[in-house]
């Protein structure tokens, strides 16, 4: 049972973590990011369309197709993240509103296009694009260790990517000149401009990175939790990722910690219902746990948090 909690918990935490890192990139550069929900949905949609198109063409099953599909999802996420960037940087739209606009647009566009594509391909309007189960693997050797070994067992194929991207992001954000400038854009954009860099360009780049990571997370959710692309992708995981990064004080390591808490709270709740043999209606109450937990964590952590000081501000280089 402990094994199950760890395996399922990680399967939920890791995509959430990928999306939260995306959010960190954006918010650290000074752009409020409420659009994660829409970005991950559009990314997942692009991935699903790529899957539907490539499946008849490429032999070898999901094992092979998964890589171009992931690339499509990440690119799709990037497109919508850049839409958010364009509206909030070029049009200087209120970033909270812009985020919601992106969410609603992504949701309606993907649902409409899914219906249209299904009508063209299969003749009957369905709101789902079938994906099938994602391949899983276990790390040989390590997965044999009792209890802790579960961390390396039945991992989704996305897991190594997310870990890799997380490491790269950590280095990029905290150990490079670009990362320093990106963080400065969120704290004091004037200083970045004074140092001879373009705040707007750095923010666009940050949002592009955000879109890549969020698209990856969205594709992962579509594969692992419903095995198809459908409107259920908009379950609020994007908002959960935002809450995770706020609880994590905009820091990648602490955000990983909060993501793990969400994941294990969720899988732990599930296992508890199974163990106690309770009715499936109660599962709704346990599905509620991550959200209640988020709210409680926010109550305790929000006051001591230090959001980037220029978060949500539009920046014009000639503004005094």
């Amino acid at each position, binding site marked *: 049972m402990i094994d199950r909690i760890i395996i399922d918990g990680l399967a939920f935490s890791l995509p959430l973590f990928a999306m939260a890192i995306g959010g960190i990139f954006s918010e650290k550069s000074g752009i409020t990011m*409420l659009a994660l929900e829409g970005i991950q949905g559009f990314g997942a949609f692009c991935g699903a369309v790529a899957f539907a198109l490539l499946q008849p063409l490429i032999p070898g099953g999901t094992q092979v197709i998964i890589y171009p599909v992931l690339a499509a999802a990440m690119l799709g996420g990037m497109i919508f993240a850049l839409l958010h960037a364009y*509206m909030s940087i070029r*049009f*200087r*739209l*209120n970033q*909270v*509103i*812009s985020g*919601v*606009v992106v969410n*609603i*647009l992504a*949701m*309606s*566009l993907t*649902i*409409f296009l899914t*219906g*249209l594509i299904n*009508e063209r391909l299969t003749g009957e*309007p369905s*709101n789902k694009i079938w994906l099938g189960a994602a391949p899983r693997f276990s790390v040989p050797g390590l997965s044999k260790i009792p209890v802790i070994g579960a961390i390396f067992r039945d991992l989704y194929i996305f897991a190594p990517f997310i870990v890799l991207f997380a490491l790269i992001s950590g280095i990029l954000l905290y150990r490079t000149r670009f990362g320093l400038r990106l963080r400065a854009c969120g704290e004091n954009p004037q200083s970045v401009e004074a140092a001879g860099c373009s705040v707007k360009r750095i923010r666009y780049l940050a949002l592009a990175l955000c879109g890549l990571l969020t698209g990856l997370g969205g594709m992962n959710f579509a594969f692992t939790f419903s095995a198809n692309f459908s409107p259920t992708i908009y379950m*609020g995981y994007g*908002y959960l990722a*935002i*809450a995770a990064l*706020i609880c994590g004080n905009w820091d990648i390591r602490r955000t990983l910690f909060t993501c793990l808490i969400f994941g294990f709270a969720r899988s732990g709740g599930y296992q508890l219902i199974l163990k106690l043999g309770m009715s499936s*209606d*109660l599962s*709704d*109450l346990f*599905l*509620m746990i991550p*959200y*209640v937990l*988020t*709210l409680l964590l*926010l*109550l*305790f952590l*929000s*006051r001591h*948090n230090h959001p980037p000081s220029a978060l949500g501000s539009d920046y014009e280089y000639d503004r005094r």
Partner: protein
Amino acid sequence: MKRETKRKDSARRASFARLLIPLASVLLTFMVLTAVFLLIGRNPLTAIYSFFQGSGLGMKSSYTSSSSMLTDFFSYLGILSPMLLGSLGVVVGLRGGLFNIGVSGQMLLSGFTATVLVGYSKLSPALAIPLVLLIGLLTGALLGAVIGWLKYRFNVHEVVSSIMFNYIVSFLTGYFIKTRYVDPIIRSSRQVAANARLNLTFNTGSGLKLVIPVGIFIAVAMAFLIRFYLERTVGGFEIRMVGFNRHGAAYAGVPIRNVMVRTMLISGALAGLAGVTYYLGYYSTMVPKDLPSLGYDAIAVALLGNLGPIGCIFSSALITVFQKGAVYMSSATGVVREIASLVTGILLLFSSLGVSMRDRIRHYD
């Protein structure tokens, strides 16, 4: 003298922009819609007209004996009322600098509370209708006030907390509906008794039954009331002040915390009213775990209405045409009805860009 004409000039330009920008975004949306219909090979004119036919604003080619254009129109008004009330909630929040994205959750909770407390009772309509409205108002206000309180007491961002509440309310009410109030055949909550529904039913002689929604009167009255409150009272002025510049307002002695909770309380109360007109007016059952998308459409309505209560009357009338008419449009032209939410999304995109354009025009004046 010269300064006087200049000020008049800029005022005229501002009011011109206020009218022009929503009109331009509507026009652009219609152009995109036309392009979409052309792309998928449908006649855009008949398709767009069918939205209006479905909303009772144009004659359909045929009607059954128990329906007419008038029944369609009243049904349209029935769904227009929660849309208008919800958008007013968003407007009050945004004017106070708070973004109430939890309209859906507040609607769901108030609808559920009213359904459980009054919906299954045998009270006479004269008693039940005011009671339902009152319960909706109070429940929504309570949830809104909690969000506002969390914001000032614990610095929890209102967007995050209201979204968390959306999901919590959705799972919680879903659980109770499934276990206690379920109708096993339709898999949603048992139908609310006719006496508790916010409708006035008239039987005309010729077998035609007219169902006039009470909500529409309340919604329009609320629009004028909110306009009066925001523009003409101290309380409303404080809300706008905090929305415009929180630090400036604090410096001027406005009790920020008080105003923040009040803003969310009013916003939530309006969303609560929207909830009861939705679940006990237009519909009579609740689908478990289903957050009404109307709560998000209300944001588009509010932005398209230039964040003005009266503007919202017009913008909600337009967006509801697409939402309501989509079913008939779909059966008439065979296009998936999700196109309605796409139209709302595009309209929202253009109108929010319009808001930023208007701010810039004002900036240069």
